[in-house]
């Protein structure tokens, strides 16, 4: 018995509470189960472990770079600040989890359980009416991180097994239900492209595709618009982050002033020019984000590969739910940039609003929600509501992202660590789920899961005849619609 206990303790101290090794061993075990040769299992183990360790270097770099600015804001204006971006959010969540003395390995367990829940819901689709499997690995890591902190925030005394089981159930249900909501909009946009969206703004896509036709006219589309060429530089992550951070931190650090920064930031040498200090500080964020993404890419690509394999083998007739950028090829080429611009416009106005109304937390725009959410909304909005809808929805989304993200960063305390997830669903649905969990505890979690599971049932009841057909055979779906409208298939109107 003593031996068993000491073996368990060894495992707990060296693997279970060390996320890098935990993830490494999971990849190793997964590859072994897939009967890959031992050297490939080992390579997978090393890549996953090193990838996670790279991520750790980057997140402590991000936090370290941010700390003097946060301290300055606290000191000068009694403000906290958060960048609304999933990478900053993931880092802040990790800091928050570790700050209360819990192990971040739970994130990985949550992810695996949630993925399993999604598979089970899909396997029983005759009853659950779920048609999609969420396989976007890096998003699953980010969402598991943020949601893990939400649960620990609302249930500080819940033990680890309870935390991962409950959250796995909740998050897996969200993945299945929310990606299932995008089946119709994506199928109609891509004319049966054979996939759904598994990303961070799935409720948003659903809402936009329902509302766009009331806002504008699809005939007045973005086609004839000529956007200035310089906007194409925002297609590059590093450039876009560098510019955004220089604008925001340039303003913040300038207001905090040279003297204060000298006091609180040891890295600001007496002989360094203030302007170059600001640029270096801002570009550092681009540096650490690039490193962070390198790390995530390393351990997630192993994960996504096997998820894709599972989705093809286990569940024929189902749809993979993938990155929102997969829809961009089907939209107007202008839509992506247009959405980004109007989203930025909305965010900047909302941030000014926060400052004017003395909000306790300052929000800094992050690149990912600004670009990927709003570009996606513009693509969907343009198809049904033309140029007006493609401007209106990203603009509203920008405002919502800042207000919802600001509330969440303040309420759930991640603004102490400088970040919040910041993507659309995480500025709307998830703060509400967090509030419900905090006030109604277990009853609240159960209620949220039941309400989520009811959504596909309602969708099914409204379109029983085409509900599964649209996912399995789009041409057949068009035939059914044409029959209903009493026109030949090539004249059918799908909206």
């Amino acid at each position, binding site marked *: 018995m003593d031996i068993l206990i000491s073996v368990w303790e060894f495992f707990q101290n060296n693997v279970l509470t060390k996320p890098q090794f935990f993830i490494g061993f999971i990849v190793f075990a997964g590859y072994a189960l897939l009967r890959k040769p031992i050297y490939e299992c080992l390579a997978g183990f090393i890549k996953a472990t090193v990838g996670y360790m790279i991520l750790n270097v980057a997140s402590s770099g991000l936090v370290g770079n941010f700390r003097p600015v946060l301290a300055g804001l606290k000191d000068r204006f009694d403000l906290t600040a958060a960048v609304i971006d999933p990478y900053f959010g993931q880092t802040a969540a990790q800091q928050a989890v570790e700050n209360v003395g819990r192990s971040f390995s739970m994130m990985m367990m949550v992810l695996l359980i949630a993925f399993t829940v999604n598979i089970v819901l899909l396997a029983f689709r005759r009853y659950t009416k779920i048609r999609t499997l969420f396989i976007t690995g*890096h998003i699953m890591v980010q969402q598991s991180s943020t949601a893990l902190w939400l649960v620990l925030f609302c249930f500080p005394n819940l033990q680890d097994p309870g935390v991962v089981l409950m959250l796995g159930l909740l998050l897996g249900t969200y993945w299945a239900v929310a990606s299932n909501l995008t089946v119709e909009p994506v199928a109609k946009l891509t004319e049966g492209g054979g996939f759904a969206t598994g990303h961070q703004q799935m409720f948003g896509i659903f809402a936009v595709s329902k509302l766009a036709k009331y806002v504008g006219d699809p005939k007045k589309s973005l086609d004839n618009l000529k956007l200035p060429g310089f906007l*194409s530089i925002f*297609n590059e992550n590093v450039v876009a982050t560098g510019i955004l951070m220089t604008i925001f931190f340039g303003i913040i650090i300038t207001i905090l002033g040279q003297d204060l920064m000298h006091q609180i930031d040891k890295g600001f040498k007496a002989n360094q020019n203030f302007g170059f200090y600001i640029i270096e500080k801002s570009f550092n964020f681009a540096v650490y984000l690039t490193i962070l993404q390198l790390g995530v890419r390393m351990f997630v690509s192993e994960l996504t590969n096997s998820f894709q394999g599972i989705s093809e083998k286990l569940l024929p007739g189902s749809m993979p739910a993938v990155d*929102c950028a997969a829809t961009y090829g089907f939209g107007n080429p202008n839509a992506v940039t247009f959405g980004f611009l109007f989203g930025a416009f909305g965010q900047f106005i909302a941030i000014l609003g926060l400052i004017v109304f003395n909000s306790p937390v300052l929000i800094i725009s992050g690149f990912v929600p600004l670009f990927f959410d709003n570009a996606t909304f513009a693509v969907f909005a343009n198809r049904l509501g033309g140029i007006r809808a493609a401007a209106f929805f990203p603009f509203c989304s920008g405002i919502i992202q800042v207000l919802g993200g600001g509330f969440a960063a303040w309420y759930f305390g991640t603004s102490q660590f400088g970040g919040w997830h910041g993507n659309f669903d995480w500025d709307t649905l998830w703060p509400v789920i967090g509030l419900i969990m905090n006030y109604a505890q277990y009853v609240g979690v159960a209620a949220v899961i039941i309400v989520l599971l009811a959504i596909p049932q309602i969708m099914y009841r409204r379109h029983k005849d085409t509900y599964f057909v649209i996912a399995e055979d789009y041409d057949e779906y068009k035939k059914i619609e044409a029959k209903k409208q009493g026109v030949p298939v090539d004249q059918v109107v799908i909206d």
Partner: protein
Amino acid sequence: MLKVIAACGSGMGSSQIIKMKLQKVFKKLGIDADIYHTNVGDAKSQANNYDVVFCSESLVGQFGGTKAKVIGLKNLLSEAEMTEKIEAAGLK
């Protein structure tokens, strides 16, 4: 050995999907290919060392002046579209 880059905006999601689908398609066509997935910025700076770049149609404009062949995809998940475009480009 054909050297291939799969690129997307962040180098995380879509490029990996392109890569996984490409692997299957190349295998079916009997083409021996080594595929690397990354973001647009990285892909641009490395494209000259590769034979061909695959990305979303919306990003093709980013690769002006590269020696590598650039193939834009409309549906990143469509094996049929990939097969057709690989054959049209005469890759082997």
